């Protein structure tokens, strides 16, 4: 087991959490972009393992999944990617994927490979609290935190979910799927105070966040800000040349939440 933990991301102020889809446009480029994000101040990296049918994603990340799969990305190649990244940085790493790729790979084998590659956590949007039991044993054995999600509709479920959350708590800021939104209407303060009553686990907000202004406001009340679609959109636009624009964007976001 490596000595890096998700908590490290939250130990020096507000955390900026960046996401990209692994293998878009290639495994090599993903490694380069991840390192750019780290250089720009990213405190935690989420690597998406592409899935054919990502039902929680909006069009931007859906298309990235398709590009990555078309480029021949597989779960094994993503493990290689994580392993290579881990050799270069101590930034905590988590995977985001759907349950089927994990289930099909085998829970035990998947979690063992996470430990081997230095991946600290797992976010699975189609595995709610009620269904996480079957994965917990293997995850616990190999020191992989299963990240819990809390939605604007969670209400009285917050206590239960936050109560035994590990790593960090992923607060979904808006209804619907991932993607950039001009305005976030959810009463995040109310959700965050309910979370804090139930848990000391750091709470980060994602879904819809793209501008430094939004990030700054969220950082005032949450422990971290998660940005996915905005980064993936830069990668879609610049392809292999996205390194510098990704760096500039992440830097501006990180500065906004300091």
């Amino acid at each position, binding site marked *: 087991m490596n000595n890096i933990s998700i908590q490290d991301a939250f130990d020096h102020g507000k955390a900026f959490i960046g996401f990209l889809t692994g293998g878009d446009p290639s495994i090599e480029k993903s490694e380069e972009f991840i390192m750019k994000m780290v250089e720009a101040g990213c405190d935690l990296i989420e690597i998406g393992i592409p899935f054919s*049918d990502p039902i929680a994603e909006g069009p931007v990340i859906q298309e990235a999944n398709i590009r990555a799969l078309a480029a021949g990305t597989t*779960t094994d190649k993503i493990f290689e990617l994580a392993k290579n990244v881990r050799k270069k940085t101590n930034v905590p790493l988590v995977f985001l994927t759907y349950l089927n790729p994990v289930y*099909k*790979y085998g829970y035990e084998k998947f979690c063992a490979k996470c430990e081997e590659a230095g991946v600290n956590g797992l976010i699975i949007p189609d595995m*709610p609290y009620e269904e996480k039991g079957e994965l917990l044993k293997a995850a616990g054995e190999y020191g992989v935190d299963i990240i819990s*999600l809390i939605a*604007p509709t969670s209400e009285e479920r917050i206590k239960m979910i936050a109560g035994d959350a590990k790593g960090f708590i992923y607060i979904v800021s808006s209804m619907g799927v991932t993607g950039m939104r001009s305005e976030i209407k959810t009463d995040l303060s109310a959700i965050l105070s309910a979370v804090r009553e139930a848990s000391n686990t750091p709470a980060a907000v994602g879904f819809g966040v793209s501008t430094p202004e939004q990030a700054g406001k969220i950082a005032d009340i949450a422990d971290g800000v998660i940005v996915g679609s905005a980064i993936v959109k830069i990668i879609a636009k610049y392809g292999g040349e996205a390194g510098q624009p990704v760096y500039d964007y992440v830097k501006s976001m990180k500065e906004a939440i300091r």
Partner: protein
Amino acid sequence: MSKGRFGVHGGQYIPETLMNEVIRLEESYEFYKNDPDFNKELDDLLKNYAGRPSLLYYAKQMTQDLGGAKIYLKREDLNHTGSHKINNVLGQVLLAKKMGKMRVIAETGAGQHGVATATAAALLGMECEIFMGKEDTDRQALNVYRMELLGAKVHPVTSGTMTLKDAVNETMREWTNRVHDTHYVLGSVMGPHPFPAIVRDFQSVISKEARAQILEYEGKLPDAVVACVGGGSNAMGMFYNFIGDKEVALIGCEAAGHGLNTQKHAATIAKGTPGVFHGMKSYFCQDEYGQIAPVYSISAGLDYPGIGPEHANLHDSKRAQYVPVTDDEAVDAFEYLARTEGIICAIESAHAVAHVRKIAPEMKKDDIIIVCLSGRGDKDVAAIARYKGVNIHE
């Protein structure tokens, strides 16, 4: 283990955003399914609007021609809107209305479920939006127009393979957008709990009637009941009240497309492996990394990479048997039924008829088979003509 299990299958594998809603749906359904007023209202709709009970028709010519078991057809094709889909839809839309929802959304493959949902929404005064794979909107253009006539908005889905699987993805995405005022009228015995149970209960009217009808006509239970399976709603409806009758063989017919030795099929039990998708654990056509396979069938309604969890369990326990039927066999059976019995059935249902043509001659003269004719074939006439290379002007 979580709720809604059929053996190891089923469950509630959905985003947290939807969890409170499926819990509320389950509570509402548990209440209304035992509510005499709800049941009276639904029975009235089924009887006076949908046209139930549907006929159990003795297919004399087919029986004589095949020279074996007696064949009965459960005529779900005679329902209003032309398929079994209306049974489930009337139940769900009525339930949604009782829950205070103003808007329903649904996915559709061939369009039958979309037409049924648009119909029920029109009747009960609800807003309705339908998601349909772009490829299917081309294959089933008439059904798209029907839905629009009924006041529904049809969204052609251009993501992925542009077929039923992608329509389900898109409907789930839309549901997470507006779960507070919208009910997702799931079209088959699939998805997260409680949908597989709700849809099965509403479709079980098929076997409830068929069981009583065959006992009245023949004084005994059938030896086999046969139905086509995509997600599996007509088959689950046809099987349900016979599950306890161990002497009745339950046979589901899945789409083998161009053949099981090709990549172009939708035969989930024959070629699928266990997985978790669209809210449920079940069997799915997928690759070694769990990527869902693009599937194919001549029938847009069977063109789905998974099967409902209760079917997966019936397969595991060997209570039901699932057999593959190719496009060619289905088209042959489609023409055969038209010529021998004067019934143009849905190409989905023709998969079941095709299998009956194989097994009936092997059975005894006093054996009985009931086939579920899940829908009528108007929607498929142009597709069959294309398949046969016949040039028709609609």
